[in-house]
């Protein structure tokens, strides 16, 4: 398809759907009400398009989108693309869930409350933690929730001022650093030693009575499990810091090892990763926070209590942290995650972990036959858990083709290879994470595509660099989107800047002489 923008479709007078008109009695009331005075003069400036035409447009766009349901989706960075069982869509989309309002009386939503309660229990079991909050809207929101808890915990103990630093590692997700910074912490980032792991000494040097928390992932985005994790946690505890475990991708360790065993105070899971809820182009997602009994009073969102009349939602009391979002969490995803766990049980979760790890090591074995790529930090080390950060620096050295350019060529194979792991600590990085969801034949297919693309890079680097060819669109000039003069953040902006449409911009705030001069980062691209 060469599908135009929705703004190019339609004609005056077309309608996509008809809405209910007001009853005469209501209209009459309106005519006498104060509302008449505030009513807008002209209709809004939206396109007018018939129903089948709107449908056709978005269906075509959907076909130009490469969902995990359609491709061997193991190359999207650390995204844990696994199968989201279709049957769970029935439950998440059931009228019995969709058509409930969050403020309905608990007696009318016992089914949902039981699901949430059982999911809390399951997450508690998987993590070993004492209490769980399901309120966070996504993984990063859960990290924010954890940082809020850290802040409240130390404030509660009178150490809020003193503890103004958070320590994290470069191979933990950027949101660990970024949420801590947003909460007002100074961020100390540890870089790995030659084995890809944090060194205990370096950590000890970074820790002090100013440390509020250690935010860490394990296995980190390199796929390497840090065997010294218990010692790391102990070291942080020694200086009075809390330890927060980013378990976004817990896929490879379900039923194998838990936050509890390593001594963590807090942890979180991305339900759209490990627990299979679909990624939805980037959300809605859902996050779960696990806490020890000591930290439970600080959890955000309501406590789910089972009483004589069934389940109800209860305020957690004075020490609870502020809500992360409206209401109780991303319920459709909580339902999906619960159903996924129930379809697998304890044995099934362990099988998930084991096969994810097997698949990952299988891909690494197969990729070892391809020239120009190497698993970072893994020479001679223990086998990786459920992902590997590879480096294509060999290929880049030989051909000049970067891993990002290789990724563009992979689009022609109907596959993803995402390389956005800023900063590039591993040169020309690409993380492959096969999860448990793909068949061996599919893993082979992916490896073969990488093999072919890298061979092409050796034969004709320019050919790869100008890719994609068979995709819906050609190489985009991203340069123009970094400059305020030329960027176009909406069709409205494009019309004004490029098509010369005359837009009246009302008077509004503008910086004055005493406004701060904000530092700008160097321009950077997504790939």
């Amino acid at each position: 398809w060469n599908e135009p923008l929705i703004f190019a479709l339609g004609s005056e007078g077309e309608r996509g759907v008809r809405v209910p008109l007001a009853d005469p009695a209501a209209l009459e009331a309106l005519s006498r009400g104060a509302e008449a005075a505030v009513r807008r003069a002209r209709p809004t400036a939206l396109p007018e398009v018939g129903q089948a035409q709107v449908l056709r447009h978005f269906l075509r766009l959907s076909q130009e989108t490469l969902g995990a349901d359609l491709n061997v989706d193991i190359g999207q960075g650390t995204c844990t693309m696994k199968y989201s069982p279709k049957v769970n869509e029935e439950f998440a989309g059931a009228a019995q869930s969709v058509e409930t309002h969050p403020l309905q009386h608990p007696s009318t939503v016992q089914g949902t409350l039981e699901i949430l309660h059982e999911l809390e229990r399951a997450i508690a079991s998987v993590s070993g933690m004492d209490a769980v909050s399901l309120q966070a809207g996504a993984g990063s929101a859960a990290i924010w929730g954890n940082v809020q808890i850290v802040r409240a915990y130390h404030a509660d103990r009178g150490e809020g001022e003193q503890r103004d630093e958070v320590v994290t590692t470069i191979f933990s997700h950027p949101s660990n650093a970024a949420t801590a910074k947003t909460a007002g912490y100074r961020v100390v980032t540890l870089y790995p030693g030659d084995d890809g792991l944090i060194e205990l000494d370096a950590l000890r040097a970074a820790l002090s009575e100013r440390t509020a928390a250690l935010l860490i992932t394990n296995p980190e985005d390199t796929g390497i499990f840090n065997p010294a994790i218990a010692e790391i946690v102990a070291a942080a505890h020694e200086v009075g810091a809390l330890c927060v475990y980013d378990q976004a991708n817990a896929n490879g360790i379900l039923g194998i090892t838990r936050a509890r065993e390593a001594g963590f105070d807090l942890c979180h899971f991305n339900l759209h990763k490990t627990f299979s809820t679909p990624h939805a182009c980037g959300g809605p997602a859902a996050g779960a926070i696990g806490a020890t009994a000591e930290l439970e009073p600080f959890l955000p969102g309501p406590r789910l209590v089972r009483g004589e009349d069934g389940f109800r939602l209860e305020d957690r009391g004075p020490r609870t942290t502020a809500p992360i979002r409206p209401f109780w969490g991303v319920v459709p995803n909580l339902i999906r995650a619960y159903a996924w766990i129930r379809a697998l049980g304890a044995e099934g979760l362990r099988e998930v972990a084991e096969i994810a790890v097997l698949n990952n090591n299988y891909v690494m074995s197969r990729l070892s036959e391809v020239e120009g790529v190497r698993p970072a930090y893994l020479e001679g080390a223990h086998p990786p858990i459920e992902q590997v950060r590879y480096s294509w620096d060999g290929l880049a050295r030989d051909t000049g083709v970067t891993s990002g350019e290789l990724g563009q060529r992979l689009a022609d194979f109907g596959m993803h290879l995402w390389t956005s792991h800023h900063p590039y600590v591993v040169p020309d990085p690409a993380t492959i994470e096969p999860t448990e969801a793909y068949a061996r034949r599919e893993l082979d297919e992916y490896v073969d595509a990488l093999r072919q693309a890298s061979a092409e890079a050796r034969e004709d680097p320019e050919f790869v660099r100008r890719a994609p060819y068979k995709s819906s669109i050609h190489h985009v000039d991203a340069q123009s989107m970094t400059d305020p003069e030329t960027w176009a953040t909406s069709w409205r902006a494009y019309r004004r800047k490029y098509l010369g449409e005359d837009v009246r911009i009302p008077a509004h705030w503008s910086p004055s002489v005493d406004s701060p001069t904000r530092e700008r980062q160097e321009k950077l691209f997504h790939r």
Partner: protein
Amino acid sequence: MREVARFAHPYIPNSAPVVKAEMLATVGVADVDELYASIPNALRFEGELDLPSALESEVALRRHMNGLLARNVTAGQTLSFLGAGCYQHYVPSICGEINSRAEFLTAYAGEPYEDHGKWQAIFEYTSLMADLLEMDVVNVPNYDGYQAAATALRMAVRMTGRATVLVSDAVLADKRRKIESYLEGAATVVVLPVDRETGRVVPSAVEERMGDDVAAVYLETPNALGVVETELSAIAGIAHGAGGLLICGVEPLALGFLESPASSGADILCGDIQALGLGMHFGGAHGGFIATHDEETFVYEFPSRLFGIAPTVEDGELGFTDVAYERTSLAMREEGIEWVGTAAALWGITAGVYLSLLGPHGLSELGETVAANTRYAIERIRVLPGAEIIAADAPHWREFAVRFEGRTAAEVESGLRGRGIFGAVPLRRELPDLGETVLFAVTEIHSSADIDRLADALEGILA
């Protein structure tokens, strides 16, 4: 001991014993356990997770889940006037079709090439919102309206370098808590009370507290009492005069009936897209938007991704890419603006479908229907003995607050429920001085007969 399965679990193809054995051979290990060599024994979890046993077939899973869900009573089965941040608007069927398309549902971080359609759909969403809000810059959806308001305020704090913000008290209590916590350490939140008679923020109240320490004034329209703020231009003037911003929380769906606050001088608009074809989902369907004018001072303060339209190497072809990606924490970790992560992209696409379907006239008709139903409900209920509408004569849209004499909020709720009606959200935490005041919401799905039923029920409860 765990039994060796003869067959794979349907979700785990390589658990098929033959395949698994061959793969182990390729890897060169005898057992998966060898692959866990890096995990010390002391950290190993022994035994089996304490989970209910697996439901062994899809039949059993469906029976279990449907059995649980059947214990809910839906707002669709009854008559509901619940609102307070989540609204029962009609969801056109096409929204569901697109929202559930396997491609959109299961896509993720793909680039402009392999996920072109996703980029275009989200760009169209931001563009439709831009047209609706009358501002050029709209973010790829963040989590929800709470987050949008909190981030909008922090944007103002950064832009002005000031450490106080004024926030209307006609804002839901949980949202205010979110804002306060999110601004902690960055700015102090000062409450700006709405006038109890007119239900709105009056310019004199703003004037009183405005100063060169104030980064922004934040108010909502319609606000938590359902009242439409009518003096935005004056308030914008006061804020701008003192070097501060006016930030408006706005219901996008109301803009079929009301002017965009941008036209009154608001600098940042923010809010939630739940009403735009997402459904209620027990409060699980939210997405946040932030909109500004196209000026770099604003744009560089967005933490979210912004999608831009750009030429490709093919003549005349337009593609999509990130705008000023270096703003983001994905690019810069803690040096980025706040943070960005997976949030609510598909809800954005769905809202785009919704706006495309309704178009200007659908939105305008829907806006009128809601306004008419709201006014009709106010007129029906204000005449009941013992019921007092807060600021009944102010313009309202969708919601209105009622104080009952001699009946607690809980009594009203339970009385209604007994009559098959959901409603009466207490405003105790929002506006404690208003006593046992409760909120009702009406939408386009209500007929005047539905509203009559509510009024009659209230009459019965008050009798």
